[in-house]
């Protein structure tokens, strides 16, 4: 079922040769499925993210590519070569671990030189490449320190340099920024992005941070319970989610479960069990015959008005909570039909709405994303 999604995946921004390919990969741990049937192609030079909540199988997927786990079924190919019989230490990939996994009995220099020395490179080349790598991550002054004398961000950079110095075909990053505080994380995101552009090698990033995935990636695969729900560019994923899970996991959204009743000319009519009618712009891919659906409305698409507005979707309700967030104001509106909608208003210096004030919440038919309750829709189906 999920396979239909990737076969219709639009061509990636960086069309080229395939660097990493997974074919029907399944991984079980003691009969407990961790990854259930992954088909995936990652192109040369791409910044590809695997995004999902903890326990969705994203780290297992990365470990299958690195060779730390062997697939129960299916195959992993790197640059067209089947990795079935190739152990981790002979794969052209390098990993940055969430825990950094620096060797703390060695200096920073020896840590970075480790891979090159194992490959028996001449000493002068090792020295040069270690220096280059240190320069690349702006840690020139720290070559002779021991890892336990470094801060978290500095360790992160050494871990990056230790992987990069080997000039791998593919860099694997397992939640590399997970242990850093917010400010440092933002800064390292910029540096990761710059490094990727400079080096032109394929980066595969595993993360549970949707903002990180959206801001860094060329393409994102959203994983849920061992499967890929959707693969696409950040805007595909955010603006055109294909499953209720993706819509809910990436950013905030209001999900309304209902039934597609029929078509009113150019719009489809969805009715929730509570009697709420929602109009959704018609699309050739969505069959107009009645079936269960989920309607997703982003909080920033909903507007509020005290007077009755003219809009496709307009509902009466009361303000149930107000949170001031600085750039935005976060409100809840309890509709007369019982649902509570989350609304995000841009802060333009307006007065904060009072609790229990009667309000109309409204949005246009084209601001709604219609999702099938059971099957993911093809990526191309959706709002323009």
């Amino acid at each position, binding site marked *: 079922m999920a396979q239909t999604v990737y076969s219709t995946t639009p061509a990636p921004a960086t069309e080229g040769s395939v660097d990493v390919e997974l074919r029907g990969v399944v991984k079980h741990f003691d009969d407990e499925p961790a990854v259930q049937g992954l088909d995936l192609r990652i192109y040369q030079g791409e910044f590809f993210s695997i995004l999902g909540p903890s326990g969705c199988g994203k780290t297992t997927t990365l470990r299958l590519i690195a060779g730390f786990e062997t697939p129960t079924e299916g195959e992993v190919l790197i640059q067209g070569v089947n990795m079935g019989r190739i152990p981790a230490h002979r794969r052209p990939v390098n990993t940055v671990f969430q825990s950094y996994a620096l*060797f703390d*009995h060695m200096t920073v220099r020896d840590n970075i030189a480790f891979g090159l020395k194992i490959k028996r490179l001449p000493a002068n080349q090792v020295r040069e490449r270690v220096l280059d790598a240190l320069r690349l991550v702006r840690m020139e002054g720290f070559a002779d320190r021991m890892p336990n004398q470094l801060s978290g961000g500095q360790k992160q950079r050494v871990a990056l340099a230790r992987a990069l110095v*080997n000039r791998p075909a593919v860099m694997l990053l397992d939640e590399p920024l997970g242990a850093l505080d917010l400010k440092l994380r933002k800064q390292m995101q910029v540096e990761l992005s710059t490094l990727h552009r400079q080096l032109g090698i394929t980066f595969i990033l595993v993360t549970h941070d949707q903002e990180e995935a959206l801001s860094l990636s060329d393409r994102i695969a959203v994983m849920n319970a061992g499967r890929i729900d959707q693969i696409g560019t950040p805007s595909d994923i955010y603006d055109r989610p294909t499953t209720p899970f993706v819509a809910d996991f990436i950013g905030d959204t209001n999900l309304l479960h209902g039934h597609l009743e029929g078509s009113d000319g150019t719009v489809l009519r969805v009715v929730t069990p509570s009697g709420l009618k929602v109009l959704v712009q018609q699309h050739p891919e969505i069959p107009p015959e009645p079936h269960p659906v989920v309607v997703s409305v982003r909080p920033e698409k909903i507007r509020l008005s005290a007077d009755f507005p003219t809009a496709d979707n307009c509902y009466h309700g009361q303000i149930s909570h107000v949170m001031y967030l600085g750039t935005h104001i976060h409100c809840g509106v309890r509709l007369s039909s019982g649902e509570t909608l989350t609304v995000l208003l841009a802060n333009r210096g307006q007065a904060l709405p009072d609790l229990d004030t009667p309000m109309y919440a409204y949005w246009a038919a084209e601001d709604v994303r219609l999702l099938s309750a059971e099957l993911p829709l093809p990526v191309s189906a959706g709002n323009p």
Partner: protein
Amino acid sequence: MPQPTWQSLFTAVMYGFMYFPIIVLAVYSFNGSRYSTNWEGFSLQWYRALFQDRRIFLALMDSLTIASVAVAISAVLGTLMAVGLAKYRFWGKGIYRGVSYLPLIIPDIAIAVATLVFLTSVAIPLSLWTIIAAHMVFCLAYIAVVVSSRLQNLDPNLEEAALDLGATPFQAMMQVLIPQLAPGILAGCLLAFVLSMDDLLISSFTAGGGVNPLPLEIFSRVRTGVKPDINALSVVLITGSALLSGLAEYIRYRSDRRQRQQA
């Protein structure tokens, strides 16, 4: 001056009970008299006699040989055992782990008798090597326990990071895992060494003719009454053991603290 409480009084009595005999022994080792009953002034003569005693020296050599060989072999096997138990999942692992650490709680007398019965039943003559084999039983378990506690605090990704950088599994073990485990291995070895030097029971059951470890020598001498040179020897042994265990504990403490700082 803080008010003495019944807790501090109790503690003082307890420590007195534990250490007073040792203090008495240490004091009398400097006694000028042949007899432990009266004090005849400070003297180092028993220490001099001790260091000139050839039998004591030979017994010490036997003990050192036994402890060194048993600890060296156990260090390798114990480390491999701890790593294997931590790393691999296999059928019966829980039982295997339990059996491996059992010598820590089995009474020494049981190990001693069992080893002797086994050796006689398969007709292996008692020798220096039978003592070494018997000592390895508990040395192995102690070293494995200390190494596996260090292993538990170690980043599980370390070995994978080495593999990822192109090291073969053997290189990863020798260049990354073993250096990281070194403080644990060393602490375990020192502990096992002290226990082996100290052992009377197992040695007395498994010693062959001509082999005479230090505790056996001491035991055979005190049977005819405690002479002051044995007092002196005991002080030397206690000091040596205390230094070694102190060193082991210090190494363990320092490496643990460093690991915690990193976490």
